[in-house]
């Protein structure tokens, strides 16, 4: 009953005219930017984050969440029609693109839209039921436990997003080091600022995100020098009853898989899609057709994608630890708006928390009602030549950076991170874990220092505290398992028939 009461409080918030407007704008803008070549959810949120600065807290968070779902959906649409996924649509490419080749683009788009709606709805129920109780668990955590949890998060994200534990953890550490630039809050000493006043407050999250994801991705796309032909195929959006019936079981399976995997550290849409797709290949009635353009190959992964995107908010909002790079950016956005995600968030800002939960479902409806029927209009974005788009994106990167402190010099910092991110990408590093390390770095330092003070400088506190010891044991097992699987090759990926999709390409 309490959940229903809370949800009604949330819907009171989400259904105000202004918040409905912010949610709709977020979904539409997110979809449009997410459609653009090479811009995944992380880059889309980075680009659009400055838009929310002048909006009231509740509306800004609701709009950002809308941008996130919109970007996820936009990414799937570009995967379906053009085989141009960035990250979240990577599995969609397999069956969906084959459906497009068979002339079933409309059916694929409808399946992806409906399955996303089902996945999102199931995940919201999980979120409403689980987040408050998980928040209670978070009160059991001490400083050493938080450190161990962050470490586990670093390792999980590294394995999942980059496929290379070594490179991923290295990028997390680089991110942590970038996060130490600025004034040390305990001693007041300026670290790594080299006397530059612009660095005294640290490097802003927008500069790191826009540089590493906006500018670096943009330049990488320029290097490819691809001229893409716009999608001009016919779209039939109405499925037959038989086709409709085939969507539901896969979508529900995907919803459950996505909801569970979204909560785990390092989890999130990418891994959820792979697992849901693999599950459908094993248990679906039409498993033999999957891989050659089957509805089930689309429905399961699309539902899992959307469900995981929503349940990945649970660790952020209940424990205060983001479990992937996108959530790290969301956390930075929460903090910019004066809200500290964590166990006290639900008690201190119930209107915000439940408003966001309710707005997720409203966002779901917007995606289904606006994006699916209007997909033809969205696809016209491909008709804009890249030569026009990229200077415009570059300009918005500059304005976005400028708007943080109204200081044009910040554009230089963003440009420097653009070069840094580009070099890292070209060296085969994925900057997504860097983002997580950067956001969690200051928290890791604070908890590490606190744990050391409480234990009088004894490092054994990490193995003496039961929660911390358990988390470190899980991390160690993960490292051992990854090392063993690295030697045995990527048999599981090959078994799924996904060898064409190297893990490097699944990043962000």
């Amino acid at each position, binding site marked *: 009953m309490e959940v229903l009461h809370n949800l009604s409080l949330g819907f009171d918030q989400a259904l105000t005219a202004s918040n409905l407007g912010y949610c709709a704008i977020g979904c539409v803008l997110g979809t449009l930017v997410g459609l653009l070549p090479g811009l995944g959810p992380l880059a889309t949120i980075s680009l659009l984050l400055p838009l929310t600065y002048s909006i009231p807290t509740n509306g800004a968070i609701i709009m950002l969440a809308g941008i996130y779902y919109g970007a996820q959906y936009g990414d799937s649409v570009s995967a379906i029609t053009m085989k141009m996924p960035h990250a979240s649509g990577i599995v969609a490419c397999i069956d969906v693109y084959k459906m497009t080749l068979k002339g079933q683009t409309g059916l694929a788009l409808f399946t992806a839209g409906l399955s996303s709606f089902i996945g999102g709805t199931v995940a919201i129920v999980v979120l409403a039921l689980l987040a408050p109780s998980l928040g209670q668990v978070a009160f059991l955590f001490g400083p050493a436990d938080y450190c161990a949890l962050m470490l586990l998060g670093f390792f999980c994200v590294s394995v999942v997003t980059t496929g290379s534990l070594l490179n991923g953890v290295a990028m997390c550490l680089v991110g942590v080091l970038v996060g130490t630039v600025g004034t040390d809050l305990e001693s007041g*000493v300026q670290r790594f600022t080299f006397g530059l006043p612009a660095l005294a407050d640290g490097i802003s999250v927008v500069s790191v995100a826009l540089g590493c994801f906006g500018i670096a991705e943009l330049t990488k796309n320029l290097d490819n020098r691809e001229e893409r032909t716009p999608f001009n195929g016919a779209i039939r959006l109405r499925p037959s009853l038989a086709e409709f019936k085939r969507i539901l079981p896969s979508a529900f399976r995907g919803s459950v898989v996505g909801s569970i995997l979204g909560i785990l550290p390092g989890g999130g849409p990418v891994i959820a899609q792979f697992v849901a797709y693999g599950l459908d290949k094993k248990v679906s009635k039409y498993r033999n057709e999957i891989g050659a353009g089957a509805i089930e190959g689309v429905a399961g992964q699309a539902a899992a994608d959307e469900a995981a995107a929503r349940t990945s908010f649970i660790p952020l909002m209940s424990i205060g630890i983001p479990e992937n790079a996108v959530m790290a950016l969301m956390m930075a956005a929460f903090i910019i708006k004066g809200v500290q995600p964590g166990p006290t968030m639900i008690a201190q800002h119930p209107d915000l928390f439940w408003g966001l939960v309710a707005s997720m479902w409203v966002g779901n409806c917007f995606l289904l009602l606006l994006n699916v029927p209007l997909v033809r209009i969205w696809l016209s974005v491909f008709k804009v030549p890249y030569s026009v788009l990229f200077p415009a994106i570059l300009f918005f990167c500059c304005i976005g950076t400028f708007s943080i402190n109204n200081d044009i010099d910040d554009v230089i910092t963003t440009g420097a991170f653009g070069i840094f991110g580009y070099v890292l990408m070209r060296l085969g590093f994925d900057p997504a874990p860097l983002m997580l390390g950067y956001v969690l770095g200051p928290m890791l330092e604070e908890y590490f*220092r606190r744990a*050391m003070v409480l234990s009088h400088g004894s490092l054994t506190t990490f193995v003496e505290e039961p929660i911390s010891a358990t988390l470190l044991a899980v991390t160690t097992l993960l490292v051992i398992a990854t090392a063993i699987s690295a030697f045995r090759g990527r048999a599981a990926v090959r078994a799924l028939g996904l060898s064409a999709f190297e893990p490097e390409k699944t990043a962000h």
Partner: protein
Amino acid sequence: MKMPRKTVLQGLALAVIGLFFALNSLSYPTGSFAHFGPGRFPLIVSIALLGLAAITLVKSRFDPGEQIHLTVRNIAIVALALGAFVVLSKWVDMASGVVALVFIATTAGVSYSWTRNGLVAAGLIAVALAFEKLLGLPLQVI
């Protein structure tokens, strides 16, 4: 000159970043584990990073990775465009900064058109003006 292979470059890049932060951390008080100085935490993290760099370099002996093709041209053009935007916005006005940004950045594209660039620049200046006048951003466009 032949570029070293990917894994070697990865190890070297991590080593450079780790060394940069480690050496600079030593210039701040490091304190003890019970009483952290401002340099201790970045020092611990950079030592860990140097450890990963060492593992990567050892790994490169067995698995050097593929050859890397680093194209400097486009990132240099983008950096130059951003630099011109900052300098002109600061010393002249943002409108001239936008014009420089568009005309320089598009040299990295597959085709170059003065007319198209003029139109894009005009459109972006209009957007900047809208941001300034309607949203109150202090952009100083003109």
